[in-house]
Structure formats: structure tokens, C-alpha cells
């Protein structure tokens, strides 16, 4: 039986050879011949490479006889080979910008090809800067500005009008939110309705806001209102939350999010506990003075701008000390400021009682955090 098939094949190919007998291009050597559904082995015919390069995929067709095919190579290239799209890189973009396609992969690409994205009900997006790198690769650029989000079909149209498409190959989405600033930048953990304004870009209606800190439960905004694509107003319950610098996370309704790292600081109330303010008289009075310098000590629970006012018994403000947040006088913990007993009017404080007010700037407001009566004796 095998022998019989071999005879038949030999007879067939002998006809080809006979038909192409005027050409010396075909050197049929021993190899596998793939035609139709049959894999034929012959030590005489080597036609595989030629046929495969032409991508003859209609293997089952009976339109082509082997004899015609080899004799009419121009027929294969001009009529059959339409563009084929197999992949697109990158496969997505956002509708606020252009995207450069670095590899539109496929086959049968030819110079003059046009590329487009299409979606039902939408205007096609035609690529610019199209470069056919080779028959299997094209680079180009799409302007996705204001395009509808969703899956788009990529189509390559050859110069001869033939086209190839890859359906739902490219995804257009919204841009991710971009959190740039939070105002105010900090709150106090005795507030249960702290309001903040978050500035940035690409905020979408329905965006959610939360504060996050490693090891702590997220503080989800009790209210988040996207007033524009660049502004969200939010409220947080900061009551008893851990002091520290928390990340601010904004998540749009498409689940895209952005984080402003350590964008919001939660602090404890700036307080000097009652009784902790004290005035002590230091060592001995310096030369030319009858007054011993006085050390004013107090604690605050967070860095803050601090003002120390000293009033005399008539209610007159006779001495002031300003300390900026973080400096001596305005740093978290114990602060010590020395008053030499000389008033702002360059006179020695008279003997008597003075009233000390320690004020700190909390949430932009000056607050009296402690006061103390103290004596000046000579």
C-alpha cells in the first residue's frame, strides 16, 4: 500500500517537474512537503520553504494544484496576503494624552499601511507617525484625548485596501488620580470632624479618600465630595487616632488610586498640663542686676509656634518671647526659656507679681495653653 502511494506521489510530482521543466530554480531535495492535509515525504522535492513563506493557509482548498502554485508565484503574493494583527504594545492608554505604540505585531505589513482604533458608536482614532518597521512590526502614535473608555479594536489597512484587525485589543481608561496637596496638613486627635481639602488632578465623582499608616487601621473619610477634577473636600474622625504622618490615599471609581506619602500629620493636642508651667529663679543675680534670671519651663505635646507673654499687675504686657515650631520654646517636650527680669521697656521688673501666659498656635489659631502667677523678689 505504501508503495502504491509513493508511486502516486511520484507520478504527481513528476508532472510538476515536467511542467516546470524549463526552470532550474526548483531543486527538489529530500524533505517534508506539507500540502493539504498530507505530509508527504520525498527525497526529491524541496518546496516547503517557498510555500510556507507565502503563508498558504487554505490548505484544504482544492483551488490550487501544486503544479499551478509553483509556476505562478506572483498570484500568491498579490492576491492572498492581507495584513494580520496579532498583538499591540502597549495594550492600553488613558484618555488624557497620546500613546506611542512601540510594537504593533502581525504579518503582511507593507509601507503605506494605515492604523486605527475603532469602537462601536465612537469615531475612529487614526494613528499618526506610522512607521512600518518590517512586515511584522509597525510603530505609531494614537491621540486618546477625550476618547471613550473601554476596549477598542486595532485595525491595519494595507495600501491595497485589504485590512486585518485584532478585536478588543486596546484598552482606553481614565487617568489615575494624582494627589498633590492636603490643606490643612495636620489635625489633632481630639477632633471628630476634621475637614481637609485635597488638591490634585483627575479626581472623579465618587472618589473615596482615606488615611493610611502602617500598623494602623485606615481612617476612611466620613465624607468625601469631589467638587471638581482637581479638588476633593473630605472629613475625618481623628478622635484618638495614633499621632504620626499618615498617607493620604484617593481612589477613583475605576479603582485607580494615588497616595500622597505622609501627606497628613495627626498630632496630639498642644497642651501644657496644668501645673507643669513653672518659673524658677536661677543661681545668683548677674552683675549690675538685682534680679536673678528666671527659667520658664513648660511642656508641649507637639511642635508648635509658641508665644510667652508676661503681664504686670496692671495688666500691661511687659515682656514677650516668640518661639517657632521645633525651636527651643516651641519643641515637643520640655522647653526652658530664660527671662532676665528686664522688661521690653529696658527697665528692671519691679518687685511683685507677674502673670505668665503660654500661648501656642493650634490649627492656625493662637490658644492660651497655660498660665501662671509668679513672684519677682529682689
Amino acid at each position, binding site marked *: 500500500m505504501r508503495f502504491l502511494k509513493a508511486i502516486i506521489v511520484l507520478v504527481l510530482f513528476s508532472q510538476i517537474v515536467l511542467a516546470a521543466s524549463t526552470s532550474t530554480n526548483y531543486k527538489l531535495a529530500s524533505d517534508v512537503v506539507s500540502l493539504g492535509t498530507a505530509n508527504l515525504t520525498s527525497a526529491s522535492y524541496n518546496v516547503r520553504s517557498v510555500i510556507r513563506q507565502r503563508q498558504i493557509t487554505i490548505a484544504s482548498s482544492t483551488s490550487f494544484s501544486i503544479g499551478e502554485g509553483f509556476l505562478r508565484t506572483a498570484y500568491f503574493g498579490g492576491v492572498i496576503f492581507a495584513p494580520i494583527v496579532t498583538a499591540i504594545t502597549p495594550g492600553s492608554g488613558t484618555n488624557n494624552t497620546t500613546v506611542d505604540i512601540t510594537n504593533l505585531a502581525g504579518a503582511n505589513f507593507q509601507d503605506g499601511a494605515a492604523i486605527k482604533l475603532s469602537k462601536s458608536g465612537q469615531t475612529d482614532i487614526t494613528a499618526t507617525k506610522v512607521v512600518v518597521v518590517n512586515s511584522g512590526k509597525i510603530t505609531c502614535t494614537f491621540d486618546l484625548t477625550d476618547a471613550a473608555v473601554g476596549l477598542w479594536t486595532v485595525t491595519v489597512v494595507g495600501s491595497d485596501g485589504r485590512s486585518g484587525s485584532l478585536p478588543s485589543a486596546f484598552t482606553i481608561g481614565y487617568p489615575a488620580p494624582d494627589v498633590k496637596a492636603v490643606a490643612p496638613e495636620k489635625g489633632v486627635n481630639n477632633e471628630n470632624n476634621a475637614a481637609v481639602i485635597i488638591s490634585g488632578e483627575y479626581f472623579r465623582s465618587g472618589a473615596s479618600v482615606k488615611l493610611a499608616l502602617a500598623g494602623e487601621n485606615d481612617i476612611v473619610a466620613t465624607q468625601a465630595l469631589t467638587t471638581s477634577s482637581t479638588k476633593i473636600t473630605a472629613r475625618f474622625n481623628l478622635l484618638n487616632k495614633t499621632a504620626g504622618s499618615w498617607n493620604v490615599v484617593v481612589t477613583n471609581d475605576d479603582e485607580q488610586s494615588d497616595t500622597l506619602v505622609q501627606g497628613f500629620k495627626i498630632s496630639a493636642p498642644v497642651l501644657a498640663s496644668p501645673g507643669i508651667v513653672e518659673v524658677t529663679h536661677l543661681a545668683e543675680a548677674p552683675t549690675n542686676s538685682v534680679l536673678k534670671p528666671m527659667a520658664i519651663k513648660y511642656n508641649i505635646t507637639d511642635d508648635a509656634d509658641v508665644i510667652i507673654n508676661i503681664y504686670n*499687675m*496692671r*495688666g500691661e*504686657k511687659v515682656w514677650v518671647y516668640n518661639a517657632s515650631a521645633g525651636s527651643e520654646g516651641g519643641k515637643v517636650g520640655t522647653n526652658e526659656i530664660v527671662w532676665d527680669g528686664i522688661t521690653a521697656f529696658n*527697665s*528692671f521688673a519691679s518687685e511683685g507679681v507677674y502673670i505668665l501666659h503660654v500661648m501656642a498656635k493650634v490649627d492656625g489659631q493662637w490658644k492660651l495653653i497655660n498660665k501662671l*502667677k509668679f513672684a519677682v*523678689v529682689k
Partner: protein
Amino acid sequence: MKKKISVLIVLMLALNTAVFAASGSTDDATVIGGGARALGMGRAYVAVADESDAPLINPAGIAGLKAPQIMTMNTSILNEIYYYEVSAASPSKIGTLAIAYITTGTDHVLVPVGTSYVYADYYDSLFLVSYSSPLSRFVDYGHNVFIGTSLKFFNRGWTGGYNQSAFGLSADLGMKLIINPYLSLAFNRQNILPVSMGGVIRWGTGIEESLASITKVGIAIKPVQLQKKLMLSGDIDLPAESSRPVTMHVGAEWQFFQNIAIRGGFDQSVDASSGARTSWSPAVGLSLGAGKSSVFRIDYAYHPYYNDASLASSYISLFYQGEPFFALKGETR
């Protein structure tokens, strides 16, 4: 007459120098500013003072009294310092006499004693004896020139865990020139006694503090063409101590009924936190009274300091004026 008045003014201003004690200077409790009426006018009161509290601002002001008066006032300064004052004045055959007493202080203050601390109470008292009369009592002119003086006795100290006291003496000298019923000029030189004449506070420890001297100059105007019941006033405080800034005060009083008046003013205080070392604060006041020949009146003033409501003080004065003395009835006030 003008020449002699000028000489008097020059003489008083010449006293506007002070010899300060080595331990510095101190003020007296009259800095607060008299009664609630004066405070409601922003302490612009030197040329206005015409009641029993005048010795606290300008002793010359009581020269025109026709009936005895008594006034009290109390307040709390910075919610820490108590302050009471009482003043009484009465005309007499020899002129108008007045006494006034102020006591202020606080308790439970930590006082350093050696290397430790004790709690003590502090008090600061001032007793004044004042006399005032028209200048015409002494010379042939000056019926519209009032002169007055106060002797001031100071007593301060600590009690409780720390006992120490101080005494001092000084005097004020004032003048009020009534140019016409609608215009008055006045000044008062406070604490005129130099250290060499005993014008100091002496502590038991040997420490001496000179008493800060201030000259107050003021004007009071009744703009009758604008409003008959309105009075405007302005003061300037000129401290002898050069490092203390000059302060000013302006005020107004509108007595739209006989026994009802409203007041307002702007009061400038020394302010260590200000680049100019001074700052203005508003003041308002209300007066409700009853009676004609004898009058009972309540004065109220609200005065925030340094534009901070938490530093505001409320002042309440009770005032009583008796019947004019028979012998003085009909005399020009």
C-alpha cells in the same frame, strides 16, 4: 494771669524728670485709670475728671464739686488680680477735700526664698489725700483755673509663707483750665517727688524702687454745635522714664438723658509685643442713674486689652452724690 499760669505749667513740667533708684522703678495702682466712667472713655479723662474719683486721674478735677460724693469700683485684672477702689470727696469752706484708697493684689503665689519656694499672698495698697480749689481762692484771678494735689501713701508686701513689706510716699499735682463751658484743658503730674525727697518705695530688704512719673495732658470738648449732650476727650501720657513709650487715649460720652449715658473710647497701652511698643484697644461703657439733686448711679465699662477678649476686664462703679451743702448752693461749679 496767662504769664503766671504759664510759669506754673513750666514749673510742673520741669519736675518731669526722675532720679531712679538703683533697683529700678515701679508704678502705682492708679495706672488702672480711675472709675468705670473713665475706663469706658478709654482713660481719656484728665480734662474730664470732675467727680470723686478725680484724685486718681487729676486731683484738680474735684475743685468744682458742690456736693459730697462717694464712688467705689472693683474689677479683676487678667482674671488673676483683684482690684478695689473707693474715693470720696466733699466741698468745704477751704476747698474740696478727697480721700481715695486702692487695694489690689493676689494670693497663692510661689515666692523664692533662699533655695526653696513658699506660697505667699501679695498686696499693693495706695491711700490718697487730695485737696483742690480754684486758683482764685489764693490770688485775685483764676476762678476758672482749678489746681489740686494728692499726697500718696504706698504700702506693699507679702504675707503668708513670706513676709516682707514696703512703704512709699509721693504726690501728684494737677491743674484744670476751664476756658469756657465747652472746652477744658488739664494736666496732672503724677509722682512728682524725686527719690531725694522720698519719692520711692522702700522694701524691708533695703531695696528701693523709684515711682514712675507720668505727666498726663488732656482736653475735653463739648461740640455743642454738633450735639449738645456729647463730650469728646483726649489724653496723652508722657512718661518721665524715657524707655517707656508715650501713650494716648481718646473717648466720648453721650449723656442723652439726665441719668443715662453711653461711652466709648480707644485706649493705648504699652505692649511689649508691638514694634511700636504700644497698641490700641477699644473700650465701651454705660451709665444708669437715678435722682436729681442727689444721685445714685451705676457705671459699667468693658475693656478688652491687646484686642484679646480673653484679656478683657469688666469694671463696675457705684456712685452716690448727696445733697449740695447749704452754704455752697448756688455757687458756680
